């Protein structure tokens, strides 16, 4: 892949020029697609994860028919089994149906949401299952209704854990966004592939990768800090 031209003065000049002209818009596209997709996917995943966890017979918070849970679990597993790039292509016609176009940022948001919500559902489900059953039992003994247990106890107790789930989700979706560059997506992935890889401008590709690394680090540190700040367990006396 590398050749004597990769780090030549001309390559550097080209790459730096691109960094100034194309990168700002690409970074914006990437952030826009990543954050919007994660947000919508999380909004879908939250109730689904809650139903899967609170509907569990053992916990007995929500009365959900067991076949419903089985079917839901199965569908999520099916969606999770499809490789992301293939799912992306399958879903593009759906984007045209939903938002009228199969090109541009928003059409990829549709695909990313469908790719991301199943695994975010599983993350959320695990977080809700992590709520101490004793605490749920205590609130039942106080006469809390299922809705109150869900909103006042499970959501609140799982909140720090949900924040770290979101952090994982954002970084994963960021990776998906980059991959979508291979099939016509926008953003840093597109820069890395069309400007870099396809034209043998590897320096450009490396620049895009470095920006992605910085973004992941940023999301991860902010997410971890927020989750840690929100968690009131195991803290010294204040």
């Amino acid at each position, binding site marked *: 892949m590398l050749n004597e031209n990769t780090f030549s003065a001309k390559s550097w000049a080209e790459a730096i020029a691109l960094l100034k002209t194309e990168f700002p818009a690409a970074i914006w596209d990437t952030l826009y697609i990543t954050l919007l997709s994660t947000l919508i996917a999380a909004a879908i995943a939250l109730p689904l994860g809650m139903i899967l966890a609170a509907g569990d017979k053992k916990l007995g918070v929500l009365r959900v028919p067991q076949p419903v849970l089985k079917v839901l679990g199965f569908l999520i597993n099916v969606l999770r089994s499809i490789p992301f790039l293939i799912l992306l292509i399958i879903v593009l016609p759906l984007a045209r149906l939903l938002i009228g176009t199969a090109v541009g940022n928003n059409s990829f948001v549709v695909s990313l949401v469908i790719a991301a919500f199943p695994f975010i559902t599983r993350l959320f489900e695990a977080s809700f299952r992590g709520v101490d059953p004793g605490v749920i039992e*205590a609130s039942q003994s106080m006469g809390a209704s299922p809705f109150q247990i869900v909103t006042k106890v499970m959501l609140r107790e799982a909140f720090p854990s949900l924040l770290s789930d979101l952090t994982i989700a954002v970084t994963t979706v960021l990776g998906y966004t980059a991959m979508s560059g291979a099939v016509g997506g926008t953003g840093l992935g597109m820069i890395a592939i069309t400007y870099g890889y396809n034209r043998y401008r590897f320096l450009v590709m490396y620049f895009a990768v470095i920006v992605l690394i910085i973004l992941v680090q940023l999301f991860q540190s902010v997410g971890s800090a927020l989750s840690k700040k929100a968690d009131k367990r195991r803290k010294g006396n204040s």
Partner: protein
Amino acid sequence: MIEIRNLTKTFASPAGEVKALENVNLTVNDGEIFGIIGMSGAGKSTLVRCINLLERPTQGQILLDGEDVALLPPKALREKRREVSMIFQSFNLLQQRTCLKNVCLPMELTGVPKKEAKERAMALLQRVGLPDKAKNYPSQLSGGQQQRVAIARALASNPKILLCDEATSALDPKTTGQILRLIREINRELNLTVIVITHQMSVVEDICDRVAILDKGTVAEVGKVAEVFSRPQSRAARRLVFPEGYEQAAAEIPDGCIRVVFGGVEATEKPLIATMAIERGIVASILNASTKTIEGRTYGSMLLSVPGGKKEVERALNYISGFPDLTAEEVRRRAE
């Protein structure tokens, strides 16, 4: 009044049905502290969870003031549960809420205005001795403090009944004593009916008025604490009261032994073995003794070996029988 009638609870398990409780009948009077004691696996926790219907009885009735709780529709049941508070072995406080907010929770559920709830919660924290921990989170508190907050939370809904499920089992003896004292005080102040589930004899001795002994899902014995603990009738009760081996000891007893049963002897009474030696010249050695002092009286039993043949044993029996609240019998090796 809590009446438990013919309560049976079975659980489905891979190995078939398991009977956790079988035909349990109990009546708990208003304002008393009622103990339910048993080995682990005896069904204590299941029994107490049937009272507020966290577990649904398979058969039988739970009557609270004459009302069968199993027949209540969901909403009415939730309202009824507010009259029956519960505290737990692991405290079960919400980790992400401050102590004050934990105590507010039951009031939040019923829609008490925020300001009013906060004031009442502060007063309750004051009552349990932790007004300065209002803004702290449970993880910053010791076990005893967490249980105090849990008690304050349990009282927030103005309950008539307090269920304590192994509430002191995770605490050290000193803290246990403090928590039990608090429960006793609250019981008297509010005329609260308290049911205490425990595997610890000392807890029952400390605060309970009456006790039921639960053994393999059935009630082996019920009665006043002093009576049950001094003259345990059932095997299960004896095993609990004299864990040192009331049963096994009998098999290894040599000839010429006497069992002395203390049925509530004044603890200040003159020392039995010493006076018997001085006054009658009968020397006895203690093989085994298990006694407890409840409300200044001694209960329990003691196994004495009296050397010197049958005559000597009879003299000893006569002497001991002369004391009030003491009974003595010769013990013969069990026919194997």
